[in-house]
């Protein structure tokens, strides 16, 4: 965005002002995340930068809170991590299967009442989580599934499918249906066509929808707060409890791990998106 040579001074000033504003906004967006990193290595118990840290004194840094996270007494994080992964994995599988199949139907031009059905399928993403939480809690309590893994997984499938539906229908919008017709004309049955032709082509969309579903389940706290019992505690619940009671550096150690995880997921999602766009011939 280099300015042409003939730009008048006032526009030049305006341009630099604009760049300054943008820098500030980017800083506002990303900087808070980076506060967590150094403080999680704090040797002291306080959540402020100690004088030693400001002088970059090596003694002021330690892995103490990471040790506490893993080996600490009465440590809730082990169980929480296990539960979070189990719940998120099954919720992702459920969301991906239900969502992909539904997206296939929705992308068909024969689909009746497309608008209203799409709006219904997307609604769990729009409706405030607290309302979803209350409604799902009433259902699970009645079905006897409150405070069970199954109940939480089912709830997370509800919350995760909209993402899969959106990403897969977006992928299917550029899908060339003549390839499936070609497969059928060559004698393939619909299931075989789907597995061998359609699925490999829409796979990037399916996986990125799955990633959204996974992250949704992994980060979800409102609905779990209503549903979880002591055995179903998850990472977000532990963080929520910790943040409400006392902000200890152990939470920052966990938060750092979560940021690393989300970075990995972001990179995967970006690579998939680019690949999907390349396949569909949309390049930016």
């Amino acid at each position, binding site marked *: 965005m280099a300015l042409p040579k003939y730009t008048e001074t006032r526009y030049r000033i305006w341009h630099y002002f604009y760049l300054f504003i*943008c820098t500030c906004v*980017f800083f506002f967006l990303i900087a808070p995340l980076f*506060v967590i990193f150094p403080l999680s290595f704090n040797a002291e118990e306080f959540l402020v930068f100690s004088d030693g840290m400001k002088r970059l004194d090596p003694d002021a840094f330690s892995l103490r809170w990471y040790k506490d996270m893993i080996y600490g007494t009465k440590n809730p994080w082990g169980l929480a991590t296990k539960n979070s992964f189990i719940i998120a994995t099954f919720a992702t599988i459920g969301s991906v299967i239900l969502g992909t199949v539904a997206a296939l*139907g929705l992308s068909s031009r*024969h*689909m009746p009442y497309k608008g209203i059905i799409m709006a219904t399928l997307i609604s769990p993403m729009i409706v405030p989580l607290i*309302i979803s939480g209350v409604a799902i809690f*009433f259902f699970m309590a009645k079905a006897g599934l409150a405070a069970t893994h199954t109940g939480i997984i089912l709830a997370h499938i509800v919350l995760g499918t909209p*993402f899969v539906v959106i990403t897969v229908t977006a992928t299917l919008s550029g899908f060339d249906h003549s390839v499936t017709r070609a497969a059928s004309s060559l004698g393939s049955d619909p299931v075989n066509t789907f597995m061998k032709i359609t699925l490999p082509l829409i796979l990037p969309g399916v996986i990125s929808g799955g990633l959204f579903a996974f992250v949704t389940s992994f*980060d979800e706290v409102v609905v779990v707060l209503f549903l979880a019992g002591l055995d179903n505690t998850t990472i977000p619940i532990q963080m929520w409890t910790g943040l409400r009671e006392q902000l200890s550096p152990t939470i920052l150690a966990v938060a750092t791990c979560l940021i690393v995880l989300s970075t990995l997921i972001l990179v995967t999602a970006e690579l998939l998106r680019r690949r999907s766009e390349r396949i569909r011939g949309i390049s930016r």
Partner: protein
Amino acid sequence: MSSETKQILTTDGIPLEVSLKKAEKKNKIKAFLLVAPLLLFLIITYIFPIGEMLFRSVDDRMVTNMLPKTFQAMEKWDGKELPPEEVFEAFYLDYKFLVEKKTFGKLATQLNYEKNGFKSILKKLQRKMKKFEQGNYKEQIMNVHKRWANVEYWRAIKRRAPDITYSKYLKAMDMYENEDGKISQVSEDRRVHRILWLRTLEIAFFVTILCFLMAYPIAHLLATLPMKYSNLLMICVLLPFWTSLLVRTASWMILLQQQGIVNDFFVWIGLVGEENRPEMMYNKTGTYVAMTQILLPFMVLPLYSVMKTISPSLMRAGKSLGGTPFVAFWKVYFPLTIPGIGAGCLLVFILAIGYYITPALVGGASGTLISNQIAFHMKSTLDWSFASAMGLMLLTGVLVIYWIYNKLVGVDNIKLG
């Protein structure tokens, strides 16, 4: 030669039109069957329970079922003066039955929602009732506590007679139905819910505006920079988007605390003195700052996807036709971005209006929203019907915006990442 067209037949001898219709119908059913599992799943686990919330919010059969004889006896009572002996006797019998079944506590809770002060007098009645003699229950009950001789309490019981009630909705708007059945407002110092509704709207509105003001320049920068720079900067938008909400809230809790970095910075540049560091957390400021940062990506992404499609030559054309850059921007570029603005603002507003976690953690007492009140009644007071009523009121608002969003943007145009 006749001019009428001959019907085209398929190889099976069926008219083509009929055959086509049959095939279309088959395709329709096929497409629908693919959607059916998810739709059914959502209807059972989600849509139907939301409907149940509606039922729960107006359902009032609990008290009706607990005091069947009383309400029957009350039918003849006009509610002007103290009820006759039959009502007292019926109430005594109903209550005695509840005490025997040990479910009288529920009645106390329910009646206390209607009028404060029921809990203690019902407890007292339960203790004294053991020594009651046969007959003349009116006097005996009235002797237990002077409130039992107050006609207002009996009217409060009578108000709970119908099977359905909309009192929870009135309560959510700080109104109530008084003795004559007129709807009036609660006294000024007890109007808590109206403040919360207004605050929710206010915070959602200003967060949307703030997000828009911050997102517009950076979306523009992302859309006009060359790919290799914009991809890198896009990560600044996407990383917070993918990071756990709790992690981002935690980072704001660290930044905004009194000994936190933001306050350190203010002291360092001399904006505030060391002694009077401002409280930036556990109040509205905290809610505003954290929510704006958390919802910003939801504004940037729709704006970016619209701006990406605007050709840069349009701005050049505007300028070459004699407009200054500002005029060209205002008359050419800005109108083209309005769809993105609409999509982003509606999305952020919808998300902000139902926010729960962040206000609960950084909002304190003055920065909490209606969602927090719903959670409070779900978890602490256990007044689920009131929580349902407030939830449905919030839901109605959200659905109206969702409907507008659907008309303007279309749900299938929601972009993710």
